[in-house]
């Protein structure tokens, strides 16, 4: 039986009543909105040629409201820092993956990396972009972790931290560089806007993929050198 906090029937009833009032109020508010509204789609359509990409969502995300995306990469980094700052969570023992998982991982991981690269490229003209590509990359990382792969010792210190930081770092530095050439922070120079966006998105993809995979692991990545992981496989 699920532990319920409010044991008294009357309190629960009162809560249900209050929330029903809230829900009806919000529903009334939503239904009072006009049935047709263009929002900012006209404004986006006008300026999309100057933005460097042809997918309107990518244009908004990386160009018109790129500052929000910059801060959001910071949020992801904070979550990672928070998780790492907790003393190491219990390490789960290595269990040999079953044959199906093992085989599928070997097939899927290269495919996932390829799909991630495609999504990154396609983001310019179709649904896709840094976050989608990064998530797929993270899925590849998660699959590998589930089959007992661990990051080589050489890569687990500075290079890993570099990969985690690259998205936000490249975005901020690119924005500051743009500020020197155009007039404002994060103002893309018109002819190169598409190239800049792709570059920033590429760094962000690596960053997002690494961060999400690291969040899945939950503590600092296990350190091992490649020889010990081969020894495991041979068991």
């Amino acid at each position: 039986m699920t532990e319920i906090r409010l044991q008294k029937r009357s309190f629960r009833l009162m809560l249900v009543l209050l929330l029903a009032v809230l829900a009806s109020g919000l529903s009334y508010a939503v239904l009072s909105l006009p049935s047709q509204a263009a929002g900012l789609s006209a404004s986006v359509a006008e300026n999309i040629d100057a933005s460097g990409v042809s997918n309107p969502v990518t244009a908004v995300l990386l160009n018109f409201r790129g500052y929000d995306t910059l801060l959001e990469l910071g949020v992801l980094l904070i979550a990672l820092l928070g998780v790492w700052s907790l003393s190491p969570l219990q390490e789960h023992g290595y269990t040999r993956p079953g044959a199906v998982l093992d085989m599928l991982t070997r097939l899927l991981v290269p495919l996932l990396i390829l799909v991630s690269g495609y999504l990154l490229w396609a983001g310019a003209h179709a649904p896709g972009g840094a976050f989608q590509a990064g998530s797929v990359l993270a899925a590849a990382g998660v699959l590998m972790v589930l089959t007992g792969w661990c990051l080589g010792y050489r890569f687990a210190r500075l290079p890993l931290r570099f990969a985690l930081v690259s998205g936000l770092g490249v975005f901020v530095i690119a924005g500051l560089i743009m500020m020197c050439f155009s007039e404002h922070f994060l103002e893309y120079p018109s002819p190169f806007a598409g190239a800049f966006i792709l570059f920033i998105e590429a760094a962000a993809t690596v960053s997002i993929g690494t961060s999400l995979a690291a969040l899945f692991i939950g503590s600092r990545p296990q350190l091992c050198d490649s020889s010990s992981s081969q020894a495991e496989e041979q068991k």
Partner: protein
Amino acid sequence: MAFFYALTGVALFTLGLYALIIYAHLMRKILAINIMGSGVFLVLVALAARTQTVPDPVPHAMVITGIVVAVSATALALALMLRLLEVSGCEELAEEPKE
């Protein structure tokens, strides 16, 4: 049609709020927050479809940002919950301090 989805979003928001208040187990509270978040995102995206042709892209971008924030927050919350479980053996928050 857009309004139907928007109302669903409102319903999800309210149901999530109920679950957040009622249940004591941390896992359920975290799930409840996620459901509330999904409700808000649904409202944002559904009402963006009220245009004549292409949907309004700005709420879509807002929701992508919101999803990343929600994922980060959920990851932090789950790690905190696991750590609390290790340290104290209990998956429910201690009763709120006596007022």
